[in-house]
């Protein structure tokens, strides 16, 4: 047990590529957590997807042992938090486990929207912020300008910002010193009943569920019956310990410390982020504030390409949910796609991650339908329902009113790209709430309907700003809206998986665009295929895919046969990746690609 005065708990807030992982690696190295041989690039992000995308999905902690200039040894706990808007609740719980945060900003790039959102979360949690300018060794570094920007945009004092290069190690010891000097030690009473914040949890096939905790009061030790106050589950503790980043078992975890608890828990659904852990026999009085059960905001359909994979998909979803209780799935039947699942996610990145993991880790070929938000429907008969799937939209005559969710979005962009960004927001029915300038960058705050950003808003934003715009959003409120269901007919048959909900003013335009896109996405067939978009019985757009005219191998003699046979077999295999709708085969990717709007 370390005395509270010699503990510091901190998180790192940084935009992607601003150097969070490199700095963390460097600190681990300097504190002797891993020797050179054990260091692999970006120690913390352990999932393939995390490494490839440079994002953190699961929180992690690392205990660093630092011999400070004052001659004392400190236990400095690094809380590696998820860094994406989809996980803002998880981020807020990770931050709540800390007393301070390093705000790492690229000394040439400056503050980005995502950083801003996380700094505000840190400030809400009363964290001490230590600004750090990274990459000062690069010729493009402009530390003075960036300091000014930090002060203007975030409103914190950046005069004593640390100047570092995480890559070379320059200034990193000073960062560790600043954590000791500038961060307050954790508050807490070792003698009070045990109380800990559940920061995150994951499922390990050998060890069961591992919960990551920050102990507030008291001591947790092996054998203690631990109670989770929200879920009211009770489990005897098997093991406690910490990560250095290696897993190290300890006798106990006490007030102020961060580490793990294993208690024979079978599913992460039992361990909700933000829950309070205590001693079942001698519980603390009140749970920690700030708990919120996770609610999926974006839904889409996932269907196996090969219908015989349905059970595999169900098992795979169940396995993923063992490790991520924040997504939901329920069986869905589509006339077009057969049996699949309607799945709910915390946001778009979360959705992509789950899809990618299903494909990679479970080797499933999936058809994904367009993401949709949850609409609140008030029917004329007084009934109320929440619509997760556009295909299930009731007949318009039965609908009294529909509410749709809105978000508050913050966009930071160099002012030369501001025009197109504002135009994009307007096209997507955005309402401007604020527009401010800091140096050569503008910050626009908009209220936007979630359904206008769930699909390709971020891609479009990146493309019109050449990648310079950064974007973040928070869920706002539900508002009544004039929405209609647009059906898509392929060869005169409605394809339910292509139906979507749009604002009435946008329906014609979107319907036209989808027909145009489908014309490119569905390969020519042996016959011509009419494509139509319709609201109820009224056709609002139409296109035609002309019939295939030529597809024949010019030369085929004795020597070629085996190769050509394999080509034909491959072609037949490829046809399996198409879904048959009446006589038309639609490539699986078309269900998502059709939604992607063209430039303009």
């Amino acid at each position, binding site marked *: 047990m370390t005395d509270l005065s010699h503990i510091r708990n901190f998180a790192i807030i940084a935009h992607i590529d601003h150097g969070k992982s490199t700095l963390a690696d460097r600190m681990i190295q300097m504190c002797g957590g891993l020797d050179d041989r054990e260091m692999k690039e970006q120690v913390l992000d352990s999932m393939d997807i995390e490494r490839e995308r440079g994002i953190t999905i699961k929180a992690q902690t690392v205990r660093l042992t630092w011999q400070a200039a004052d001659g004392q040894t400190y236990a400095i706990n690094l809380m590696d938090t998820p860094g994406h808007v989809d996980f803002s609740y998880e981020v807020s719980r990770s931050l709540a486990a800390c007393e301070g945060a390093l705000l790492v900003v690229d000394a040439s790039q400056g503050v980005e929207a995502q950083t801003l959102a996380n700094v505000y979360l840190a400030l809400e949690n009363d964290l001490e912020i230590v600004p750090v300018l990274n990459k000062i060794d690069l010729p493009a570094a402009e530390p003075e300008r960036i300091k000014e920007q930090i002060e203007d945009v975030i409103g914190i004092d950046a005069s004593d910002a640390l100047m570092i290069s995480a890559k070379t190690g320059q200034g990193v010891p000073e960062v560790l010193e600043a954590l000791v000097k500038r961060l307050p030690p954790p508050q807490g009473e070792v003698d009070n009943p045990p109380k800990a914040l559940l920061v995150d949890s994951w499922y390990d096939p050998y060890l069961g569920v591992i919960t990551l905790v920050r102990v507030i009061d008291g001591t947790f030790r092996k054998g203690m019956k631990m109670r989770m106050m929200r879920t009211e589950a009770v489990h005897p503790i098997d093991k406690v310990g910490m990560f250095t980043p290696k897993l190290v078992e300890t006798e106990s975890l006490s007030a102020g410390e961060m580490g793990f608890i294993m208690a024979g828990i079978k599913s992460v659904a039992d361990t909700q982020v933000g829950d309070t852990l205590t001693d079942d026999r001698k519980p603390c009085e009140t749970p920690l504030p700030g708990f919120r059960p996770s609610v999926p905001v974006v839904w889409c359909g996932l269907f196996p390409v090969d219908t015989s994979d349905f059970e595999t998909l169900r098992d795979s979803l169940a396995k993923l949910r063992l490790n991520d209780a924040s997504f939901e799935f329920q069986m869905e039947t589509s006339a077009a796609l057969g049996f699949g699942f309607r799945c709910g996610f915390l946001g778009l990145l979360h959705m992509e991650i789950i899809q990618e993991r299903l494909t990679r880790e479970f080797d499933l070929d999936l058809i994904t339908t367009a993401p949709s938000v949850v609409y609140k429907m008030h029917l004329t008969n007084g009934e109320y329902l929440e619509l997760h799937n556009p295909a299930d939209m009731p007949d318009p005559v039965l609908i009294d009113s529909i509410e749709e969710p809105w978000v508050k979005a913050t966009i930071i962009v160099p002012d030369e790209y501001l025009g197109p960004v504002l135009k994009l927001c307007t096209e997507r029915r955005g309402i401007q709430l604020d527009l401010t300038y800091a140096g050569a960058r503008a910050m626009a705050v908009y209220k936007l309907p979630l359904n206008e950003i769930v699909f390709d808003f971020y891609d479009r934003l990146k493309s019109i700003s050449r990648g310079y715009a950064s974007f973040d959003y928070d869920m706002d409120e539900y508002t009544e809206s004039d929405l209609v269901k647009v059906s898509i007919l392929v060869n005169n048959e409605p394809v339910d998986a292509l139906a979507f909900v749009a604002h009435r003013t946008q329906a014609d335009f979107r319907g036209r665009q989808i027909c145009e896109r489908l014309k490119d996405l569905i390969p020519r067939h042996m016959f011509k295929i009419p494509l139509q978009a319709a609201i109820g019985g009224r056709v609002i757009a139409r296109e035609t895919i002309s019939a295939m005219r*030529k597809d024949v191998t*010019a030369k085929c*003699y004795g020597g070629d046969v085996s190769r050509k*046979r394999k080509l*034909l*077999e491959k*072609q037949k295999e490829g046809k399996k990746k198409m879904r048959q709708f009446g006589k038309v085969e639609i490539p699986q990717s078309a269900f998502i690609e059709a939604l992607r709007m063209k430039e303009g």
Partner: protein
Amino acid sequence: MTSSDTTDPTADPDDEGFGLYVHWPWCLSKCPYCDFNSHVIADPDHAAWARAYVRELDTLAAMEAMDPAAPATRRPLTSVFFGGGTPSLMAPGTVAAVLDAAARHWPLADDLEVTLEANPGAVDRARFTALRAAGVGRLSLGVQALDDAALRFLGRRHDAGEALAALDLARAVFPRVSLDLIYARPGQTPDAWAAELDRALGFAPDHLSLYQLTIEKGTAFFAAHRDGAFALPDEDTAADLFDLTRETTAAAGLPAYETSNHARPGAACRHNLVYWRGGDYVGLGPGAHGRLGGVATRTIAAPAGWLAQVAREGHGLQARTPLSPPDRAVELLMMGLRLTEGIHAARFERLSGLPLADALDPAGLATMIDLGFVTRDGPWLRATAEGQTRLDAVLAHIAA
């Protein structure tokens, strides 16, 4: 006139013929569109090649004779085809040696067809006369285009004048001559192709192989095309050109008997018909494929590697793969539907061991018949002219 008349009046569903393919891998230069097993060499060792061919043929014939599945009496050889590469570069003595060796192993059909491919740039009267004397009766001349700019684009060593001179010479020496042309070239309009095709028909050939230019992996054209150096005609233009070709050749009395091959009645290439009808053939030389009693054979493609293995083991075989009935069935479908005559159900079942109906996807077949791309006519399954234009897609629909 039924379509079988247009291919070969002797077409007999019980007999596909039996062929020998001889691969000569050498060329004077590599054409940018060619993905065949061809290599450039200044001066091959002709004596060594002749020895190797004869040695490999002896071995393959002995293997065939020992195969328990082989017919009790040796079947007559109906065709020999020297392909390449540029086989007109072969020493006539090599051609004669191969034909002599073949005659030692198999009875030769009375009407044995011996074809040799030639490039207009690599011929003279003496060579043609010597090849004729060696036993070549049919010359397939790679003219490719009748336009100098197009010939340069195709990387050919000859110009149009040389091609025509070679054609005149060939017709004087060989009883049968065929011309190859490549069309649907970048920028080629239907009018321009119609004029070129009319000129070719003006020479009164009895056989024309007319190929649309396709871009194959591993060729110089592949990279150039990918990098946008040129573009092929779009699908609609290619379809127009294909239809135009079929109409024009039919009107001139050389209707298509196969996707890209056109002949006067009785003048079809009997050797190639062996492939398309699913018959057996021996594959001799580097990179040659063979089909013998349901076994696919393939030799080493690299000339030096092939020579070395023949010297060591008597043959250059790299693989002997027995084909399953479904594999055979797919091959027969792919090859047979290229023919205007189509596929004979009895032949299909005899060669593949599967009834034709079992090799077809009933729903796909019904759709293709509905759309007019395929017809059933007694024992014959046929792709219509419209079906020929889209044959690869038709196959993907009808193959079970």
